[in-house]
Each structure stands twice: as C-alpha cells, then as structure tokens.
C-alpha cells in the first residue's frame, strides 16, 4: 500500500507551551488504512491528527521536530464540535457540503455530484435543503463528515466523529469508514469509543502524554472496552477480549 503520511520521531510543541503535545511519534498511514488513535483527554490524539494532516504547525502555529512526509494531495479534517466548522456562508446543507469541492474550482456539475455522493454515503440526502444552523448536533456532525468526504481527501482525519451522535447513528458512521478506506483513502480516527473503533480499524495506536505507548492490531491496542473491563473484573487472564465475539470465543475455549 502507498504511504500517504509518514511521521518519523516527530515532536510537536504548541506556541508558548512548555511541554510538547507530541513526543517522538513515528507512524505511517497508507491508503486503505483505518487507524484508530486512542488516549485519555490531553494525550495528544487531536494534535496527532493535525500534525499528520499538515495543519500543525502550518495553520495552528507551534514547532515541529523530526521528519514528516505527506504524500497525500488533500487531507480532510472533522472536529468533535461540528458547529465550529460551519462556514456560516451557506443557506443549505447541500451548499455546505459542496463548499469544499467548489473551493477547488471544479465545474458546477462535478461539485454538485461530489456533494450528492457524500450526502448519500452519510445517508443525509433528506437534509439537503435544510438550513445548516438549524440542524441538531448529530445531524450537523454527519453533514461535516460529508463535507470532508466531498473533497475526496487522500487522508481523512476524524476527531471523535460520533461525539454528538446517538448509538444507531454512531454505528452507521463507523460503518462508512471501511467503505471510505476501501476507495483508497487513509482514515485516521481519534476516538474514546474503543468498541466501535475496534470494529472498523485495521490498526490502532494508543497515546499517553503525547507518546505512543501501544501500536498494533485493534485487538492488541484497544483493550479498554466494556467487555475488556468486565473480563478484567471477572478475573479473566490477559489479553482481555475486547468485544463480545472475542469474549464468546474465550468462553468456548
């Protein structure tokens, strides 16, 4: 697989900060990857997304040390707070989703087709004519993911994309990610939802105080799930099962 982003011993420090937000981080994101990034609040997961997509330090400032190679032509980012990502200039969801492709100067028909496809992928076609600022948090979050997808990014970084969603909508959103990755996009997913992430991720990294403390398959890294906690509490020896099927397999053995 083609490496879209390569980080080698990257350290990133925000302007004015004493400690780096990321320290000595090395990882590679390839086309088709769905990489889950977990860690406690303040661990540096959001910063990793910004560094991997090139927005830090270019837009947010700060200093970067180490080697970063970004082969991706376009990177999309979706943040946890969807209302801060609204352009404020679009009167319909269709226009909000089409904003990105329109910025690329593509022909009108191509722009509208890209917006329509992205809305279909997120199952939000019925919102196309609605005023974006009148949507619920969950609807808006799906709109913002569609807006990022409409740009057809090579790398799509999602920061807790289901924070505003109900469980059903969150499942639907996570189910879209392998489809997006299969089309050749590298997906970077920062989330505290280990269970859903484990279901769709191909690889996972765990961060603590800006450093990678675990890297590998989702089963190896995303161990802080409800099922794993129950297994731990029940005295089950490690490695703990992280989802119901793996728990059942363990019980059967």
């Amino acid at each position: 697989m083609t490496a879209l982003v390569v980080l080698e011993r990257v350290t990133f420090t925000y302007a004015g900060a004493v400690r780096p937000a990321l320290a000595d981080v090395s990882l590679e994101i390839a086309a088709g990857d769905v990489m889950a990034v977990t860690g406690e609040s303040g661990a540096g997961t959001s910063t990793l997304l910004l560094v991997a997509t090139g927005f830090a330090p270019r837009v947010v400032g700060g200093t970067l040390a180490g080697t970063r190679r970004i082969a991706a032509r376009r990177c999309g980012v979706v943040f946890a707070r969807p209302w801060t990502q609204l352009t404020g200039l679009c009167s319909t969801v269709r226009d909000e989703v089409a904003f990105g492709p329109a910025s690329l100067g593509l022909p009108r028909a191509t722009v509208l087709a890209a917006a329509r496809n992205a809305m279909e992928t997120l199952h939000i076609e019925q919102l196309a004519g609605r005023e974006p600022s009148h949507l619920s948090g969950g609807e808006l979050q799906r709109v913002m993911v569609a807006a990022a997808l409409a740009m057809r990014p090579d790398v799509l970084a999602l920061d807790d994309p289901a924070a505003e969603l109900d469980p059903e909508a969150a499942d639907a959103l996570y189910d879209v990610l392998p489809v997006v990755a299969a089309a050749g996009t590298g997906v970077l997913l920062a989330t505290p939802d280990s269970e859903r992430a484990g279901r769709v991720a191909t690889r996972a990294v765990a961060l603590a105080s800006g450093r990678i403390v675990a890297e590998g398959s989702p089963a190896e890294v995303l161990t802080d799930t409800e099922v794993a906690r129950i297994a731990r509490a029940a005295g089950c020896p490690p490695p703990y099962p992280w989802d119901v099927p793996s728990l059942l397999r363990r019980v059967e053995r």
Partner: protein
Amino acid sequence: MIGYVDGTSPLHRAHPYTTLALSGALLFGAFALTRPLEVGLLVLTAVLFAATGRVLRSSAQTALLLSLPIWILLFVLHGLLGAEPRMAFGPVALSVPGIARALVLGGRVTAIVLGFLTALATVSPHRLVEAMTADGVPFGRTFLLASTLTVLPRMRERATQILEAQQCRGLRLGGSIVARLRALGPLALPLVLGALAEVDEQVLALDARGAAGSARRTALDPPPDSRAQHALRWALLALVAAAYAWKFWRMRG
C-alpha cells in the same frame, strides 16, 4: 432586530449589489447633504428603503434605539452650547441654530443606521457570497464582507445561550444599573473567549475545505442580475457624486 430576515420583498429579490448600493448611497449621501430639508429627504428615503424591504418596523425600532444616545448627546451639546438666538424650553434656554444643527446631525445618523440595518436584514449573506464568487472576488474578501453581515446575529445567538446558562446557575439580571453592569462580566467573558476559541477551529475547518486555496471558486447559484439593476447602481454612484459636487460648489460659493 439586527441581521438577515428571510423574505420576498423587492430588496430581498434584487441582486445583493443593488441593495448594498442603495444602502451605500444613503451612507455617502448623508455626508454630502447638510441642510435640514435635504436631511429630511434623506431620512424619508431611508424609511422608504426599509419599507421596500418590508423591514420598516423592526429596522426603524432598532435604528431609533441605537441612535437615541447620539440624539440626546447632540441635543445637549448643540442645544446648550450653540449660538444665539435662544428659545426657552422649560427651565433652560436652548440655542435655536444648535437645535437645528442637532436635528441635521441626528437625522443623518438615523438615516445611515436605518439604511445599514435594512441592508443587513435584506441581503442574504449566502447570495452575496455567490454573487462575489461569480465575479471572481477572492474568498478572503468575500468572507470578510459576509462575516461582517453575520457577526452580529451570531454573537446575539451566542449571548442568549450564555445568558440562559448563567441564569440556570443563579445569575440575576434585574435590579439596579450597578447590578446589571456586574451581570455583564459573566456574559462578556465567555462570549469573547468562546468566540476566540471557536475562531481557531473555524480557520482550520475552512482551510481543510480549500478556502485558502488559489483556485477560483465555483459559484453554485449566482443571483440573477439585470441591465436595469446594473444601470441603477451606476445611477446611484452618479447621484452620490453629484451630491458631493453640489456640496463643494456650495462651499466655494
């Protein structure tokens, strides 16, 4: 009421440049017209402008509210400190030319504010963006102008949310002026800090969606323009130029 109000009035349907040109003509005309009769006509034009946009009541109320402190200041300053002759007005003797001067200045301010509020209420930021995009105006400038039109309604919405949240935590809004001024602290601080924090994310989101790119944006639904509107805009420009020429000719005479 400050901000765009959805509608179907002639001003709403007009090309955004035309409505802005009318508002601009009021603004520049106000500085060129100096006689009481001229200013009276200017105020009447501003009233007609607001009535054409079907926002007269709301815009006039806000315009009067906003210009009231200026009216009071003008009457106190020019009425008390103006030249002779004076007219007894209760216990005080007010300057007749001073009062006339206050009326002229207050009328100009009210006409400007009313024109501006009418433009805010009838120019859809989205249509303005589309018009500017179709004309190839760089996104930075478009965003600057459209943001100016949307900043007040957005701040007001946010202030309402903060006030409601603070009231839930026991903030009391009534009482003496001192108590009301004290209540401004819990409103102003989160309002400003929250806006600053969200600006960071919005900059990132816009950048991620290609807003900072060099490609010429695609206009999706540019508002229709006509030769008549084009001619009207030029005529307004000529009218303002003529008003200034008239003003300078009078000054020389």
